[in-house]
């Protein structure tokens, strides 16, 4: 993995090789490994070491006709390749159409103005995670397989670790660097007629307990064996944290200034309205102790905390520098509240603008929090959902999503999870769902496959719409 000094030296060379007015380097470097198992056997086992240099150059920024910007990328670090990278970017930039709205690259002063307490730094590199090797991962998988064998189940899943660094340098003097480790375990336990699942991810491998996750997944598989078929319809559902993450994840792409300006957001004409229930409060907070990721954006701007939803009312939006400038000039400016760069922009040029990526839901207020078990105990009839799968948007404005339950779906009756049920297809408006949350638990770091990791609580939701059942 490159050090900050090595990355800085590469940037110095690129500055020398480029004659563009402005130069920005996004650099990433690291190694990752993933041990994959199925049928109680390690069947795939991989590792990778790689680097990526992405150079953006700009010319004529601030001129009457408008500036131009373009990007070139490589994974080659030798001098000839760096020279060619600079030449490619410059060839591309000179062929662009001028863009009167192109901004100059940010200065250190502009970045500092966006800094939050702590100076926008986080410590997310853990040596013990970085030291994990293939035998360590195999040992953990062996413990998972032991659980499967004891329960006469087949296990499948992954144990992955990585260590990487990301840096951003620009010719105006901005220099940002972030190092992080990651450990991830995902376990599926499979029986003849059922399955169970658990997944977790954290910078510190010591916070993960693969054997315990395997036990929980095995218990879900055992208890959901021989599933009953339920009639589709509206049910109360208890969504475990991963299921909540799965279904709400796509919504946050719409909490962006660019999405509003382009009228592709479901928040069009809905800002300031009481869109969700009073018990829904959501922040974007890269500094939260259960969050991960870089504390700066694709231009090096420091990420700020955002209150996206406050007691059901949409409040803050994420802004790149460009989106903030355009919003201030638009007729929407009066309606959207606070406008300014928030440190959520993607690397330029891009098609999506910006988005909040470190979602933190508030759990239930003190005294009203319920565990999943308490939610089950207080439910007369409903469905307990472990995870959701293959979620896609049916309607972008009503935010109707469709998808399937998977790997542990249970009928809850008279306060108990009575039996497994065949998996169901849902078609559910997210807006309606977040108006119908009856109970919330403690917010935890959750992982899934349908969205990036979040801090979310379990929820019980009334009148959740299932439209079909499948064959298993």
């Amino acid at each position: 993995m490159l050090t900050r000094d090595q990355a800085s030296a590469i940037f110095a060379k690129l500055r020398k090789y480029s004659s563009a007015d402005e130069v920005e380097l996004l650099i990433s470097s690291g190694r990752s490994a993933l041990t994959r198992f199925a049928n109680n056997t390690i069947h795939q086992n991989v590792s990778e070491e790689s680097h990526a240099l992405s150079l953006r150059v700009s010319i004529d920024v601030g001129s009457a006709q408008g500036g131009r910007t373009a990007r070139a990328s490589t994974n080659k670090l030798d001098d000839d390749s760096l020279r060619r990278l600079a030449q490619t970017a410059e060839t591309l930039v000179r062929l662009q159409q001028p863009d009167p709205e192109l901004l100059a690259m940010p200065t250190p002063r502009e970045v500092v103005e966006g800094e939050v307490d702590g100076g926008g730094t986080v410590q997310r590199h853990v040596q013990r995670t970085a030291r994990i090797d293939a035998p360590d991962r195999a040992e953990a998988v062996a413990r998972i397989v032991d659980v499967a064998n004891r329960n006469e189940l087949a296990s499948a899943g992954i144990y992955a670790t990585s260590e990487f660094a990301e840096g951003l340098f620009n010719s105006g003097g901005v220099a940002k660097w972030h190092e992080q480790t990651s450990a991830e375990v995902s376990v599926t336990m499979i029986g003849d007629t059922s399955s169970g699942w658990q997944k977790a991810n954290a910078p510190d491998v010591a916070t993960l307990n693969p054997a315990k996750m395997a036990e929980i997944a095995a218990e879900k598989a055992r208890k959901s064996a021989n599933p009953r078929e339920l009639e589709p319809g509206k049910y109360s559902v208890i969504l475990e944290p991963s299921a909540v993450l799965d279904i709400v994840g796509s919504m946050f792409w719409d909490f962006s200034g660019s999405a509003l300006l382009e009228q592709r957001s479901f928040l069009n004409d809905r800002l300031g309205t009481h869109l969700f229930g009073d018990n829904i409060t959501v922040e974007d907070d890269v500094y939260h102790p259960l969050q991960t990721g870089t504390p700066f954006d694709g231009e090096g701007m420091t990420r700020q905390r955002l209150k996206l939803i406050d007691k059901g009312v949409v409040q803050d939006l994420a802004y790149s520098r460009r989106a903030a400038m355009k919003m201030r000039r638009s007729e929407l400016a009066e309606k959207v509240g606070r406008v300014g760069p928030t440190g959520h922009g993607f690397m330029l040029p891009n098609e999506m603008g910006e988005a909040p990526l470190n979602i933190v839901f508030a759990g239930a207020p003190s005294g009203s929090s319920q565990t999943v078990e308490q939610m089950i105990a207080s439910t007369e009839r409903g469905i307990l959902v472990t995870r959701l799968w293959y979620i896609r948007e049916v309607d972008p404005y009503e935010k109707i999503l469709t998808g399937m339950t998977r790997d542990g779906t249970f009928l809850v009756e008279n306060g108990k999870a009575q039996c497994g049920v065949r998996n169901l297809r849902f078609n559910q408006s997210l807006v309606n769902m977040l108006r119908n949350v009856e109970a919330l638990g403690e917010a935890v770091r959750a992982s899934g496959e349908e969205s990036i990791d979040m801090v979310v609580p379990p929820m019980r939701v009334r009148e959740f719409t299932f439209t079909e059942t499948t064959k298993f």
Partner: protein
Amino acid sequence: MKEIGSWALDTAKLRGATHAEARIVDERKRALATRSGHIGSASDSESLGIGIRVIADGSFGFAATDDLTRKGVQNCASQAVQIARASARVKSAEQFLAPEQPHIAEWASPYRIDPFGVPLEKNLDLLFAIDAEMRRVKGVTLAETSMNFRRYEQWFFSSEGSAIHQTFITSGAGYAAHSFAGAEIQKRSYPNSYGGQYQNKGYELIEELQLLDHAGAIAEQAVALHSADRCPQGKFNVILASDQLSLQIHESVGHPIELDRVLGMEANFAGTSFLTLDKLRTLKYGSDIVNIVADATESHGPGLGTFAYDDEGVAAQCTPIITNGLFTGYLTSRDTAAAIGAACSGGCLRAEGWNRLPIVRMTNISILPGESPLSLEQLIASTDHGILMETNRSWSIDDKRYNFQFSCEVGWEIVNGQRRRMLKNPSYSGISTEFWNSMDAICSRDEWKLWGTPNCGKGQPQQVIGTGHGAAPARFRGVAVGAAYKGSE
């Protein structure tokens, strides 16, 4: 490259590997996009590296690096062997590969115009012209265009003696008009949604698509959808346009026939399959007129699944998947073929790039057109009452690939053999085998198109790869329509 390959293979063998493969990949990509009059993307990227797969102690190991020095490659090969030895700590059987003769070969996907030789200004001028044409239509609130090119050169070497050099040129382009009004966001795309059309062709594909000619009409349809009636709910005869049918094939045939899924190897992420081994040559997958092949050969056309050899050196093949409605074949690799006792691999092992382990992937999974002449208009004329659906808007299917639901951008009501009113928000759903058994007509070769799906995700770490799907418009009887909007009731 041969020298680099030999560093990898020699080191792997020296460290104890009983089988070794090295893939060196040099990839170049160009991505251009506009959004409502502005540049959305203007980037070139390149990537060079090596991926080494070995068998040691009876298990697989894989390592990849972008350090192509002798030391870097040898370290990578050593690491692959160490990883394989760790894999052997948790194994239930020795890893075997179905037999394959070594091949020495050179191949390049045919193209007429090198897309990287076309002036960038010409590409951007075209995208901005399309963008402007769409925004000329009142009511269009967002116009998106994109154009992508890729040159992918791969050298494959194996300890069995294969040395295969292949070069692929891929082009793709498309656009979409969005319209927000009232409480709706509507969208129309051309020539297909999610980036348009992709093939293993040069810039000639961009010319063939006649992109600018359709921009105004597509934008007008996006706006007109606001005043269209909503697609009704119930059981209907449904005609799927070839673009939508290609995705239907991808999801409800292409994925469930992947033998690694069937064997449980993807159970934790992508899922498994309803096509258990007992279904081979016994399951009536579709009606008698359903014939689907997995065809990676050049004769099938310039699909994203066309090649000469797969990523473990197996020659491209055409495998019958559904024959007169009967399920007849899986997508296989050397290890999965060996696991079911097959004589050889079907040649479907593919990797996203140098840094990914090749896994079983679709090639070109295509439905064969009807043999009797039948145009789309003739198919509509022979339909008393039904709904024609075009261009995918969303897709979802369960993890065994039984239950699916698709939404399309636009529908057209068919009454007494005539295309009548436009319908918005059309959707349909069903069970894969029941759906394919309800197919009672398919158009002939003139209506058949080889579509490219550039964004198929699978594997851990996830790999995104292109697949091809040939399809002609087809009719399905008694399909469940409209359940998607029960969620707003």
